[in-house]
């Protein structure tokens, strides 16, 4: 049976479809899946074990066993192993948190770029709007212009602000969309890029006449989230919050995808004129895609502001939008699990592999074993390596690591094998 190299096989544990080779693969994967978490648990500070652990999550996604078993494994890894490890190693919890955050951002951008086929080069602007929405009110900043209320607001407001920032960002996305969505292709891309720069410059300069954003100095300190009087300011707390948000986002976006709205989006991507002729209100659907994506970015902005306890305009540059776009393209435009894995790959490379390699080489240099000039430091070649990866992807896997695959929802009715959908469930836990 021809299998896509990165696609999960039939979920049914059916010996007949298994060749000897498949059994070997299954065995190796099972070893990784069991051994990596145990290794990480035993040695909670080991970077190699952490990367092996992340790899084991990919193995869970690909494993050819029933969906419930994969789900169970994913839950154990993400909800038990990772928090335990994160509680003792803040670095790993932070990396996992950032992966989940970008997972949400990538899922959001994927609605616009992947489903609806609109190139948006200014996605970080909405992220910034969310971050500032929380930062201003959860710091002393709001005292400068708010006539009433006591600032900073307590961390208990964090939860409300997740929703509030989503609405504010969504509305900004809507406002931007109104004039801009008449444009197509490259023109749209350039306008969104320009818009993102406007937003960033606005935040950079909105310290006069009334000091709203504190300009380039940024806003700090920002209240961490709280539940009553419990401060959730440890990396592992953020991990749990963001994992929950990622799962929620995944379910919501998947529900949208499998509805008349999601189909309308893809129809617009495939052939806008025909979609209109089928009665799809194209402008409304594009605005909806834009707003939902913006809202998701806004929600993540709140988490970002709280986690860093500091925001300034430099966090939301054009490069930030490009990194998120890279995750979408690398993972597979239009593929939900794909873009999450894209986020994982980019963040692990950025925050873990390159950093580890750099510090390892630096330690060798200080020990006098190796004389590595500082310009050869791997962390400095991050963009080069990204570029290379993207070029290679374009050549060898133009549709991304996990290409979009369309699956009928009501399968039993259509006499199709109940497969592939389970992959979505398991992979929603990827992080």
């Amino acid at each position, binding site marked *: 049976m021809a299998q896509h190299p990165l696609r999960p096989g039939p979920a049914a544990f059916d010996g007949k479809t298994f060749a000897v080779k498949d059994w070997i693969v299954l065995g190796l994967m099972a070893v990784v899946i069991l051994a990596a978490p145990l290794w990480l648990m035993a040695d909670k500070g080991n970077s190699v074990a952490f990367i092996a652990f992340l790899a084991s999550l990919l193995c869970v996604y690909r494993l050819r066993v029933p969906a419930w078993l994969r789900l169970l494994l994913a839950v154990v890894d993400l909800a038990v192993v990772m928090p335990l490890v994160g509680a003792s190693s803040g670095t790993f919890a932070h990396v996992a948190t950032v992966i989940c955050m970008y997972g949400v951002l990538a899922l959001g951008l994927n609605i616009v770029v992947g489903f609806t086929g609109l190139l948006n080069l200014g996605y970080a602007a909405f992220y910034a709007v969310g971050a500032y929405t929380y930062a201003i009110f959860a710091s002393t900043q709001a005292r400068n212009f708010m006539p009433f209320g006591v600032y900073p607001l307590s961390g208990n407001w964090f939860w409300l602000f997740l929703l509030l920032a989503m609405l504010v960002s969504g509305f900004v996305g809507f406002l931007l969309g109104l004039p801009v969505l008449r444009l197509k292709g490259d023109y749209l891309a350039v306008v969104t890029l320009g818009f993102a720069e406007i937003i960033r410059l606005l935040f950079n300069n909105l310290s006069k006449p009334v000091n709203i954003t504190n300009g380039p100095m940024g806003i700090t300190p920002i209240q961490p989230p709280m539940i009553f009087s419990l401060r959730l300011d440890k990396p592992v707390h953020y991990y749990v919050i963001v994992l929950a948000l990622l799962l929620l986002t995944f379910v919501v976006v998947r529900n949208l995808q499998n509805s*008349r709205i999601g189909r309308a989006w893809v129809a617009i991507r495939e*052939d806008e004129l025909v979609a209109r*002729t089928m009665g799809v209100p194209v402008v409304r659907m594009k605005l909806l895609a834009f707003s939902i994506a913006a809202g998701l970015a806004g929600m993540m902005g709140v988490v970002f502001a709280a986690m860093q306890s500091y925001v300034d305009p430099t966090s939301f540059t054009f490069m930030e939008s490009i990194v998120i776009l890279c995750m979408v393209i690398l993972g597979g435009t239009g593929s939900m699990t794909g873009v999450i894995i894209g986020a994982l790959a980019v963040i692990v490379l950025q925050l873990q592999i390159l950093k580890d390699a750099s510090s390892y080489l630096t330690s060798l240099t200080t020990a006098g074993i190796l004389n590595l000039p500082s310009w050869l430091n791997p962390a400095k070649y991050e963009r080069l390596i990204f570029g290379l990866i993207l070029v290679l992807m374009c050549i060898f896997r133009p549709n991304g690591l996990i290409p979009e695959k*369309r699956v009928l929802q*009501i399968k039993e009715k259509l006499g199709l094998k109940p497969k592939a959908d389970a992959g979505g469930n398991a992979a929603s836990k990827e992080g």
Partner: protein
Amino acid sequence: MALLEVKGLTKTFGGLTAINSVDFSMEEHQIVSVIGPNGAGKTTFFNMISGYYPVDSGTITFDGHSLTKLTPEKVAAYRIARTFQNIRLFQNMLVAENILVGFYMNLKAGIGDIILRLPRMRAEERAAYDKVMELLSYVGLAGKEGELAKNLSYGQQRRLEIARALAIAPKLLMLDEPAAGLNPRETEEMKQFILRLRDDMNTTILLIEHDMKLVMGLSDRITVLNYGEKIAEGTPEEIRGNEQVVRAYLGVEEADDEEDGGDAAAGEVLA
């Protein structure tokens, strides 16, 4: 009252007059063909009814409503569906999804229902899938629902395009060269299929076609366009005997040179 009524419709592209003051009308439940040589403005005519181009002058009225200034999605809301000369499917969507897009207007689930996937939304989706299956077996594509549209054969793609158009329960179905690229046997099948379609779906059909056998055997009335102008209109018999039509098809000079032979040749062309 006529179902579709077009008066003085004109469209120019730069210096080219694609459609010049065309009057046209058709009754409910008819099958009407628009024929004419290449570049006669047939597809432009279709595109204007569909709302793709702004109308330069003239009016389009459908079922008592003016379509003159409407966008394609508003035109679709009046239950006017169409297919395309060069098949335009949603290539990277599944066969079933192509048809489901056509159900967009019929599905009522709001965004809240969708995000929470409430039971009524699921029930609606299931009902829609049932209709998809019905439509697919009606056009002979049963069992293909899980395939990508681009993986279907040419003939299957044509049928899928018609099924997708049927999804919006059209009062008027516009077919742009449904028999293009089909062999004689398939063309005959298509003819039977279109006749069945009108009765089964209780619709009205407007088609553009080059295949004279199909047009003559199918149409209640025929309209002939040439260089953007309507040169003839009538029953298939009337069109067959119309000298102007013959000239349009054979070229003016040729017809002038051999008046006698012209008719014979025309008989062949329009047979």
